[in-house]
């Protein structure tokens, strides 16, 4: 083997080691993320595997010291949008009705001293219910809410990841959050964790 070939081989080994050290610890986070996107465990596993494969193949192009998590999420999100979304053919049901700002705070405040204290109502809901509410938000809005509020990415980072203008990120996020709040409220009400809305009581009486 030539010296050059030996050098290349040891570069590959070093890269593989670096990839394992830095990227493997993100597996659990990426799996959760994949579940929120695909909404089923089989597709989520495939999506994570595909993400790691693409990330590994492209790892030479990743600049060490920059944000690896953001880089991996970008691959995950794009892989999902380009492959699984086509496969899943999710009907893009959009909740067209206008949901008012502060939807959940306004409703929870009625059942306690302050809305912030009543946040415990949502905290007491089982994880599965909260995840189901998020997963029921239509996809474009769900992705924005998930990246911003669950994963904590900045609007700018999300805009770069999704390759959409920052204004679009903000409007999707805004609407998505209100959709999620309405779904959470409905779930809390179904579970009897909160009182019924007064106007609904009036109707049913």
């Amino acid at each position, binding site marked *: 083997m030539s010296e050059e070939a030996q050098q*290349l081989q040891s570069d590959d080994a070093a890269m593989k080691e670096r990839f*394992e050290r830095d990227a493997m610890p993100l597996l659990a986070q990426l*799996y959760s993320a994949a579940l929120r996107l695909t909404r089923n465990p089989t597709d989520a596993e495939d999506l994570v595997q595909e993400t790691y494969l693409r990330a590994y193949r492209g790892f030479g192009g990743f600049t060490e010291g920059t944000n690896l998590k953001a880089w991996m999420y970008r691959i995950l999100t794009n892989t999902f949008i380009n492959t699984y979304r086509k496969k899943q053919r999710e009907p893009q049901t959009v909740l067209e009705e206008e949901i008012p700002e502060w939807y959940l705070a306004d409703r929870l405040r009625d059942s306690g001293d302050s809305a912030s204290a009543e946040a415990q109502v949502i905290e007491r809901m089982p*994880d599965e219910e909260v995840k189901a509410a998020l997963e029921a938000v239509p996809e474009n809005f769900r992705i924005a809410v998930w990246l911003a*509020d669950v994963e904590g990415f900045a609007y700018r980072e999300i805009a770069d990841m999704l390759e959409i203008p920052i204004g679009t990120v903000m409007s999707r996020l805004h609407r998505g959050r209100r959709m999620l709040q309405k779904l959470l409220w409905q779930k809390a009400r179904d579970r009897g964790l909160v009182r019924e809305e007064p106007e609904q009581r009036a109707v049913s009486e």
Partner: protein
Amino acid sequence: VSDEPCEDVLREIEDLVRQGTDPLSVQTVAVHLQTCYPCDRVEFERRLRIILSVKCSRDPVPGRLLSRVRTMLEETPPEPPRTV
């Protein structure tokens, strides 16, 4: 209505978040939130985001997924031939 100006309370909230729990500030903030609805709404949505991020990010990883990914890494050949 509580006498604390909103910006002072919001600053206290931020400090609380950073430092943990000072019972006196916790009390001041709670009283303010009961009477100042604009702050209460903002603080509610902040807490909601925290709850969301905790509840939606802890899914048990199937053991086979870790081994699938590791196997894939072992079997994936190094980068395609480089153009040097």
